[in-house]
């Protein structure tokens, strides 16, 4: 069968959901296709026994409080989505093993952040002042850039915002060195890199500062009912706005005409639209589109890019309370001060994050129990070497055991005797549910040449399918919950403005036609 609509959105991940919502809100007819039976993509949860595990979210950056909302809360307010957030004002505890190691907790909030940094690194005062200034000037530079609609005066930028230009064009590690941070402070500040999947020596400093600002200034939030509640909330908004949400509906092809994307295939049906938005990664779109429909320069862009990291996730339902475990919400563990790229290029990277949801959402699990979530960034090429379908289960348990034991030793807790439920996700899990190539959880690697700043500045080397717009973690702004929600809105805004322009052109054409035919008629009448 053939169907027609205004806009098709492919994939109901964070970006697809907000895109569809924005489009439907503007009065367009929208169909949102999702291959899975739930909306949300990685923003989901799952139940084992009496536990409901968060699948992927650690915390949403830049949520802020009701009185002092951050970007994410404002975004949800704007689209009329009520999410029950709990604020988390401890940024993290970070434990580095070894003789140079440390075990410190850093707080959110500008002053608290500075104070807790000074407490563990008394010598970093001067450098911290410089860092805070840099965070501010970055914000001012962005505001100036926005004011100039992305075309700032270069001289003004160089004179007034040179520190921004520096952070925007150097890796985080270099910038922190230039600010004079000694090793321990630098190591603590770099802790968050694993949230972006790019080691500090390759991570664009501006990108990191943007994230840090969101965590430090506004503060992070955790949804009381897991990220899945946000996904269902967005789906609900879509229903209300008249968007047709089709779950269990995998898009199996893109339909092209004269180089333009004019629709998609779902099973035996064809759906045509004026515009298509893809929440699915360009690599998969390329495979579905067929070689002949992809421009040479897009092929180059696809091949130039590397995928971002994937993860080993260990979900544990514990029959111990959070008090008995004695853990904060977030603990980073690493075996050295500066885990670099080579650190990930190994089977078992010695860096991971331990989250205990009950430290923020007290009643996330039944009384006397708690949930632990261990996240390890991995590169499948190394992590999954030698793994086959037959030994996969054994491999999963081996990997999980290794990190659980490390966790027990490093944090001095007893985990193994108290596991009531266990589930382990690997790159295979990401491949299974999201068809992510090589199980990437983070789209394309945001490293050096393809970092956030580079993607934002380079307006030319982007995927250039006519009438197809991308949103999601593989986009210019990179991965992360907040940015993917925003990416959907941005994609929708682009599409809406193009359609409006087109409508305007059609209108003018019609008017001209009417006038011409009117004149002709008059002539003929005469």
């Amino acid at each position, binding site marked *: 069968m053939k169907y027609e609509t205004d806009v098709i959105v492919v994939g109901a991940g964070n970006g697809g959901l907000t895109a569809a919502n924005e489009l439907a809100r503007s009065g367009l007819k929208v169909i949102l296709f999702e291959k899975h039976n739930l909306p949300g993509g990685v923003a989901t949860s799952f139940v084992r026994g009496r536990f409901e595990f968060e699948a992927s979210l650690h915390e949403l950056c830049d949520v802020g409080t009701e009185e002092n909302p951050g970007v994410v809360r404002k975004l949800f307010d704007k689209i009329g989505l009520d999410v029950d957030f709990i604020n988390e004002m401890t940024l993290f505890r970070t434990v580095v093993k070894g003789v140079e190691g440390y075990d410190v907790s850093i707080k959110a909030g500008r002053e608290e952040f500075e104070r807790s940094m000074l407490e563990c690194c008394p010598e970093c005062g001067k450098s911290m002042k410089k860092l805070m200034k840099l965070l501010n000037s970055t914000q001012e530079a962005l505001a100036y850039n926005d004011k100039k609609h992305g075309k700032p005066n270069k001289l003004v930028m160089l004179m007034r915002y040179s520190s921004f230009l*520096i952070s925007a064009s*150097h890796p985080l590690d270099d910038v922190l060195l230039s600010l004079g941070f000694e090793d321990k402070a630098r190591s603590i500040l770099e802790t968050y890199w694993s949230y972006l999947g790019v080691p500090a020596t390759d991570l664009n400093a501006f990108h990191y500062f943007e994230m840090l600002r969101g965590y430090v200034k506004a503060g992070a939030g955790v949804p009381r009912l897991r990220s899945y509640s946000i996904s269902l909330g967005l789906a609900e908004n879509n229903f209300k706005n008249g968007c047709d949400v089709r779950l269990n509906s995998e898009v199996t092809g893109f339909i092209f005409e004269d180089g333009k994307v004019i629709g998609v295939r779902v099973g035996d049906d064809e759906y045509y639209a004026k515009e298509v938005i893809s929440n699915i990664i360009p690599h998969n779109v390329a495979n579905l589109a067929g070689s002949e429909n992809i421009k040479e320069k897009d092929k180059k862009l696809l091949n130039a890019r590397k995928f971002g990291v994937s993860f080993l996730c260990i979900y544990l339902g514990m029959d111990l309370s959070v008090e008995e475990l004695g853990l904060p919400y977030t603990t980073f563990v690493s075996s050295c001060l*500066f885990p670099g790229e080579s650190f990930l290029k190994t089977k078992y990277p010695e860096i991971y994050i331990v989250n205990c949801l009950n430290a923020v959402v007290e009643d996330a699990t039944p009384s006397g129990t708690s949930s632990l979530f261990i996240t390890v960034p991995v590169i499948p090429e190394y992590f999954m070497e030698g793994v086959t379908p037959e030994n996969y*289960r054994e491999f999963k348990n081996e990997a999980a055991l290794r990190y659980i034991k490390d966790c027990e030793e490093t944090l001095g807790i007893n985990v193994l005797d108290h596991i009531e439920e266990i589930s382990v996700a690997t790159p295979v899990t990401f491949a299974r549910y999201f068809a992510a190539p090589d199980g990437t959880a983070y789209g394309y690697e945001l490293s050096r040449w393809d970092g956030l700043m580079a993607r934002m500045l380079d307006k030319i080397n982007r995927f250039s399918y006519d009438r197809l717009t991308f949103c999601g973690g593989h986009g210019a702004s990179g991965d992360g919950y907040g940015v993917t929600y925003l990416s959907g809105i941005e994609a929708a805004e682009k599409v809406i403005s193009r359609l409006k322009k087109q409508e305007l052109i059609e209108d003018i054409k019609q008017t001209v036609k009417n006038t011409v035919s009117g004149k002709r008629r008059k002539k003929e009448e005469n």
Partner: protein
Amino acid sequence: MEKISSKVKKIKLNAANFLKIVSNRKKKIDSAESVDVKPLSGYRPNAIASVIHPERQFVKVSEITAVTGSAKLIKLVPDKDRGTERLAPFAAGSCISVEVSIDGRTYHRPYSISSSPLEGYYEIIVKSANGGIVSNFLNDNVNAGDGFVISEPFGELTYEPLRDAKTVVGIAGGVGITPFRSFIKAISDGAENFDLILFYGIDNPSDIVLKDEFDRACSNPKIRVVYVMSGEGDVPDGFEKGFVTAELIKKYAPEGDYSVFACGPEAMYDFLEVELKKLGLRKKFIRFDYRGEPLRPKKLGDYIPASCESYKITVDDHRALTEITCGGDETLLKAMERNGIRTRTKCMSGICGYCHTKVSEGDYYMPGNRDGRRAADAVYGYIHPCCTFPRSDMVIKLP
């Protein structure tokens, strides 16, 4: 990368680098090849995912053996002609959902896999049952060579070495023996490594399936089978009489920790809940298999009576609205099946969420012991129709 010294080191950075960002990126992209990207199957995680989680599997019946007067062992092998080269690997204790078409209606029912993960085929044991449309069909109408579509293996009654004790006390009630046959075979051939003490509850000895096989398996010191006979009549030598009570478990269980795995009818689970409490086992050591569809909802502890004999259900499938009726003690899923509406279901026990569906209007009853929903599902009105009873007229929106 320069080596970072342990001392504070100042380095100079250049703001002019900013001007090179775009040209650097362009250079990198220009130097890349303009070949097609490789298909998903070219990545190891994706290739493994497609083998262990196929969306569906095509199988053929290769053998049917009567194992009791009312139960048959059906052996399923990959149907290569329809594109299934190999069957997905599974952990002992898993099940598959079998799709069956009867009189133009499509049904899906879960069956535990009863063979070992190392055998390359799946065996299921199907017992004919009162009112069991699919079980009776599989018992009476299936011949060697028949083809079926089945799901990937799934389930939660699997042995997890990081969670479960080294010894499992298995409790099988009647045809609930099926996953335990898989465990026994898996321990025998080394696919699983734990000690199993299995209580096999039966009415009378003629209910026992594959006794020779179990007796042979018991030569392995890791396996012990204790027959527990509850029916009237003489109790054969070595059999226990009655039900699997706390006392009986104590008699056979080892010192220290052990896990209890149970599979059987609802009444057995209810009975065990009381008995296991007496043993003071931690929750982590108790695993019940899927409870299956709630056949006698009135007997459930939290039962909410229906005020009408049947209700009007409007089913929205994105294209049209279909009105059907659903009995007060009939699940929405069964009503849809009965009316020829294509449904998706796997566990039939309210747990796996495969049939996840939105309620637009109306009240319903989901038994607490079969409510595997996420917290937000209740907030936004989602149900698992396989275990949901209407309590008013309803409008539901298929995914």
